[in-house]
């Protein structure tokens, strides 16, 4: 079981729609800690990325490079930039491939984690989107097919949100008043959890 770039483009379109629907909710979560633009950022980034691969090239190298360049032009915000960097990293790693299988997913999440840590300068445990991706990577490691993924990812995401809620943020704007961040979800983590929830929803 595997997906071509056409399948992945459809997934991106789906995620772009979810980001647009969740925009206000994410802006609100960011507004409590930061500058209130996480929702807007993600809507723009995924819309641009999905648009750029609307007629997808078959090669995943080209595919992700195009998505990454488009995402990068859409925003210079922290999370938006990190997403763009991940696409660009995928573009390098998956050049020459035309299919991705379920077995690739954990490795992709691992590459996303590494890229974000390298570029963003955070460390695991800082309560950022990276901790969320790491938890999902863990949950999906060794999975043989796509079928159970959304549900498993969602379970891991919700556990991680719960886990981190009581902890303070240690990067970005939220760092400046880490105390006030205790009890609140990090907007980047929340964004991934909401995407998992909406991807999992129809499957329930």
């Amino acid at each position, binding site marked *: 079981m595997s997906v071509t770039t056409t399948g992945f483009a459809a997934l991106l379109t789906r995620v772009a729609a979810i980001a647009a629907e969740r925009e206000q909710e994410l802006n609100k979560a960011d507004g409590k800690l930061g500058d209130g633009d996480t929702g807007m950022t993600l809507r723009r980034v995924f819309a641009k990325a999905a648009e750029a691969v609307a007629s997808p090239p078959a090669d995943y190298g080209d595919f992700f490079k195009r998505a990454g360049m488009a995402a990068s032009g859409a925003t210079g915000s922290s999370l938006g930039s990190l997403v763009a960097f991940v696409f660009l990293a995928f573009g390098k790693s998956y050049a020459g491939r035309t299919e991705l299988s379920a077995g690739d997913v954990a490795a992709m999440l691992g590459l996303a984690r590494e890229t974000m840590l390298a570029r963003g300068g955070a460390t695991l445990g800082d309560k950022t989107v990276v901790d969320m991706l790491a938890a999902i990577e863990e949950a999906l490691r060794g999975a043989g097919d796509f079928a159970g993924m959304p549900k498993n990812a969602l379970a891991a995401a919700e556990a991680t949100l719960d886990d981190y809620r009581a902890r303070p943020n240690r990067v970005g*704007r939220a760092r400046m008043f880490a105390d006030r961040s205790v009890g609140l979800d990090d907007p980047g983590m929340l964004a991934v959890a909401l995407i998992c929830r909406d991807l999992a929803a129809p499957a329930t």
Partner: protein
Amino acid sequence: MKKLMNAPDAYVDEMLEGLCAAHPTLVRTGERGRVIRDARAPKNGKVGIVSGGGSGHLPLFTGYVGRGLIDSCAIGEVFAGPAVGDCVEAIKAAEGGRGVLRLYGNYGGDRMNFDLAGELVEEEGIRTTTVLGCDDIASAAPEESAKRRGVAGLILAYKAAGAAAEQGADLDEVTRVAAKAVERMRTIGCALYPCQVPGAAEPTFTIGEDEMEMGMGIHGEPGIWRRTLAPADEVADEMLERLLADLPQAHQERVWVLVNSLGATSLDELFIIYRRVKAGLDRRGITVLRPLVGHYATSMEMAGCSLSLIGVDDELDALLRAPADCPFWRNQP
């Protein structure tokens, strides 16, 4: 909040179009038109200086593109960093064969994009260095001063580094000067009214009809306290005290002072504040070499002001006084 604008999505591009139409020394370039370079850049044999960041802070950043200041800028949406591709093009626009200093404010998005851009141009043989503006003392404790955000003081780093580059210094030397300026610079802001990002449904923050916030950042980042509006003299005194408590004693002999409007605050008010700051510095025996009072780094129509001090030695003072010419700052030769 009412603004004189058209479609929110066109805000930045229309602003840049008008800016360059009004100032022929500024050239708009880049794939998306989000790079502004000096018409004379790159200058062969001169170290280049590139900056950039989100829109909404005019005259920062683009207004300081000019001779003896910065060579080019990469510009993002309002309050959002520039894209990697634009950072790459801005660096290339500044490269005159002796390398490029990336000199911009310490914000996550800006840093990630300029860093990646630096790696990309390095592959093409352009040497770059980085100095980050981190003058906002309210944004992190002194022990974590490298984590502080960059605000209005950045323009004094432009000026010093720009003068060094203009005088023929090499990349390491220009970088040293910029880092020295940043190290001796401190800023604190206070806000009275918010601003609104074009297209946003609400102002960036809200603040009571009789309140003010001390230490607020240029995007509305929370500050040190929020209380009832105080008289200008009290505000000026507190700002000055906080800056002097943070600036090493060794740099408190001679200073340049910058009283900056965050946008809506009038020159009247800035001069009332400056008057008190000057008296406070005089009382402490600190010499004001030159004051700058006006609109230098704004947050659109936000009301409030920031106060910056830079403790100078002869070298920095001479560089700050050196000739320069850009749309919003001109020192005479």
